[in-house]
C-alpha cells in the first residue's frame, strides 16, 4: 500500500486559518503541515470543530475572503495556490482538484438534472459540445456504478436515493479526471451497506485513474479501511500523523489512544465500559499555545502548557511531550495490547 515513492502532489506547510469574530481573531487551524503524494489516500480524522473541514476549504480557496485570513504555504504540483486570484484558482478546482462534499443534497442543484450539472462542469473546463458533454456524463455515471446511467442522467436530484446522489456528486468530481480528489465526509450521510459501496468505489478510482484522495472523516473504521496515511486533528492542529498501519498498531498521542478506546469493538470480548475521554473538545477561542488536549489528558503535566514538541518515530510523528519508554507504558494503561495486536 505504501506509495511514498511517488512525487508529491500537494504540499501544505504551516497552514494557519483565522476567523474574524466578535471576540477578535480566532485561530481555527494552527500551523498544519502535510503532503499528499500522487495516487495516495490521506485521511484527515477528527471530531467536529477540530478544523479538518476548514483546512480543506481554505486550501482550496473556498473560504470567505472577507472574514478569514489564511497564512502558510500550499503548493499543488509545485505551484503556490494560496495567492492565486479567483480566476486562476477556478482553472485548478474542478479540473485538477475535484471536491466531494458531505451532503449530496446540498451539493446538487435541485432544479437541474444531474446530467446537466455534470455537463456544465465539463464545459466550464473544456471546449466541447453540449452533446459530447452529456455523453461523457452518461459514461461517468456508469463509471461510478449507477445501474442505468442513460436514464439517470435526465433525473433530478430528488428522484435519486442518497447513495445514487453521492455517486452523482463523485461523477461530477471525476468529470475532468482530476489528479486529486478531496472528499469531505463522503459517506457520513449514507447507510452502512451503501457506505461500503462508496468506499469500494473510491478505492477503485484510485486504482483505475491513479487519483490521489484526501478523505476527511470522523470514522476511524473508514480510515482503517481505505487510507494509506492518516493525520489526526484536534483543536486545530494535526496532533499525530503517520502510516495507517503504524497509527493503528501503536498510536503515539494520548488523544489517539482515547479516540481508539472510545470505539466499541465489533468482535472479541465486550468491555464493561468504553474508555471514553472525559470532557469535551475546546472551542477555538479557548485554545492557547500549549497542547489543546491537555485539559482532557490524563497524563498532562506542566510542560503541556507550552507548545508541544514534534516527536518522530519511524513513519509516525506526534505533537506531545511524552517520550519512550514512558509513552508505551502509559499507552498500556489505556489500551490493552491484545486490542491492538
Amino acid at each position, binding site marked *: 500500500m505504501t506509495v511514498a515513492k511517488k512525487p508529491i502532489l500537494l504540499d501544505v506547510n504551516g497552514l494557519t486559518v483565522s476567523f474574524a469574530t466578535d471576540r477578535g481573531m480566532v485561530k481555527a487551524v494552527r500551523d498544519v503541515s502535510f503532503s499528499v503524494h500522487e495516487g495516495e489516500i490521506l485521511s484527515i480524522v477528527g471530531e467536529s470543530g477540530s478544523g479538518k473541514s476548514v483546512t480543506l476549504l481554505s486550501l482550496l480557496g473556498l473560504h470567505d475572503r472577507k472574514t478569514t485570513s489564511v497564512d502558510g504555504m500550499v503548493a499543488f504540483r509545485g505551484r503556490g495556490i494560496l495567492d492565486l486570484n479567483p480566476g486562476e484558482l477556478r482553472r485548478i478546482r474542478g479540473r485538477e482538484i475535484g471536491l466531494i462534499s458531505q451532503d449530496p443534497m446540498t451539493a446538487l442543484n435541485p432544479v437541474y438534472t444531474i446530467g446537466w450539472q455534470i455537463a456544465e462542469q465539463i464545459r466550464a473546463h473544456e471546449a466541447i459540445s453540449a452533446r459530447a458533454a452529456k455523453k461523457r456524463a452518461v459514461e461517468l455515471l456508469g463509471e461510478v456504478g449507477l445501474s442505468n446511467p442513460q436514464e439517470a442522467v435526465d433525473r433530478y436530484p430528488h428522484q435519486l436515493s442518497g447513495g445514487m446522489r453521492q455517486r452523482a456528486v463523485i461523477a461530477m468530481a471525476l468529470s475532468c479526471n482530476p489528479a486529486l480528489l478531496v472528499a469531505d465526509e463522503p459517506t457520513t450521510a449514507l*447507510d452502512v451497506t451503501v457506505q461500503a459501496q462508496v468506499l469500494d468505489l473510491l478505492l477503485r478510482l484510485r486504482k483505475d485513474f491513479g487519483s490521489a484522495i484526501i478523505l476527511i472523516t470522523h470514522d476511524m473504521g473508514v480510515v482503517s*479501511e481505505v487510507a494509506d496515511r492518516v493525520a489526526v486533528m484536534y483543536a486545530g492542529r494535526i496532533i499525530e500523523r503517520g502510516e495507517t498501519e503504524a497509527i493503528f498498531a501503536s498510536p503515539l498521542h494520548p488523544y489517539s489512544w482515547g479516540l481508539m478506546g472510545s470505539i466499541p*469493538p465489533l468482535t472479541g470480548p465486550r468491555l464493561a465500559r468504553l474508555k471514553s475521554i472525559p470532557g469535551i473538545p475546546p472551542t477555538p477561542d479557548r485554545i492557547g499555545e500549549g497542547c489543546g488536549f491537555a485539559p482532557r489528558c490524563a497524563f498532562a503535566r506542566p510542560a503541556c502548557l507550552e507548545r508541544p514538541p514534534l516527536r518522530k518515530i519511524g513513519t509516525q510523528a506526534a505533537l506531545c511531550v511524552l517520550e519512550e519508554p514512558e509513552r508505551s507504558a502509559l499507552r498500556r494503561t489505556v489500551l490493552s495490547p491484545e486490542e491492538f495486536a
Partner: protein
Amino acid sequence: MTPSIPSNVASRTTGPSAPDTSIHGTGETCLSPRVPLMSARSLVKTFTVGRTFKPGSGRTLHAVDGISLDVFPAETLGLVGESGSGKSTLGRCLTRLYDIDGGTLSFEGSDITKADTRSLKPVRRKVQMIFQDPSASLNPRRRVRDVLAEVLKVHRIREGAGIEERLGELMDLVGLRREYLDRYPHEFSGGQRQRIGIARALAVEPTLIVADEPVSALDVSVQAQIVNLFSELREKLDLTYVFIAHDLAVVRQVSTRVAVMYLGSIVETGETDALYARPSHPYTQALLSAIPQPHNRSRQGRILLTGEIPSPLDPPAGCKFSTRCPQAQAVCREVRPPLTAISSERSVACHFPLA
C-alpha cells in the same frame, strides 16, 4: 444475562404471516420464568403519503409491517437497521407516541393498543423515551430546572422542597453539576444536552426506556461517555432499554439481545454475542460485514450488497430482502418467510438461514 428457556417458549417471536394462535392469550409465555414487560403482536403502523384533496388519493406506506416482539425485564434490546427500516417508527409505537393501526401492544400484561391519553398517563410514568437530537427535544426558552420540574409536577411525583431535592438527584445521576439547573439548553454541549434528555426521561422513575438513536448525533469521544452512562444507569436503576441505533458497534456494546429490522419487519433476533458472531439472516451477515473496523483491516470476506433498501411504498414480493440477497432463490421472490425460532435464543425470517 439470559437464563435458559424452556422449549415451550422457544417460539415466542412469530412472524406476521404465521398464524399467531400460539401467542394470543394462551398464557404460554406467562408460565415461563421470563414474563415480558412489553409485548407487541403483529404490530402495524401505516402512513398515507401523497394524499391530495381528491378522495381515495394517496398511497399507504407500511412503516411497521406486522412486527411481533417481546421486551423482557432488565434486558437491553437493541433495534438495528438502516434508514427506512422502520426502527424509529416501531420505537414510537412502543411508547404510544403514535397510534397503532393494527395488532396489539401490551405493557405489564395490560393491553394498551387503543389506550387514550388519560389511561396512558400511568403507562407514561413507566415508559419513557429519549430522542436523537437533544437540541430539538429541549425547549430553548426554558431552563433545565423548568424542563425537569414540569415532568415531576405533571405526574405529581414530588411537591415543594421535594422537587428541588429530586432535581439535584437527577443531575447527579446523569453526571451534570447541580448549578447547571439554571442554565438554558443552548449553554450546553451536545453531550450535556443529551444528559439532560436522559435526566428528563429518568425523572418519573420509569422501568422501560426507549432510546431512539441517543448517541448518533455525538462525536466519538463524547458518544463513549453517553454509552457508558446508559450502562451505569441500567445497573444502578434496574432499567430495561429498547436501544434504537444504526451503529452496530454501539448496539453490541449496550445490548443483551438484538433485533435486526429491514423494511418494516424484523428479520432476525438473538442474543447479542451469538448474533454478531454467527448471524443467521443473510442481511444481518451483510450488514455486519459492511462495517469498517479499525482492529481488522482485512477486507476479505466482505459481502458487498448491491443497490439500496427498496422503497417501503413498494416492497418486493416474497422476502423483502430478496432483491439484494446474494443467496436469493425462486421461492424467496414469491413467499415471505415468517420470523421463526431456529433455537431457543434465535429467530430468523429466512427460507435458507445460514448455519
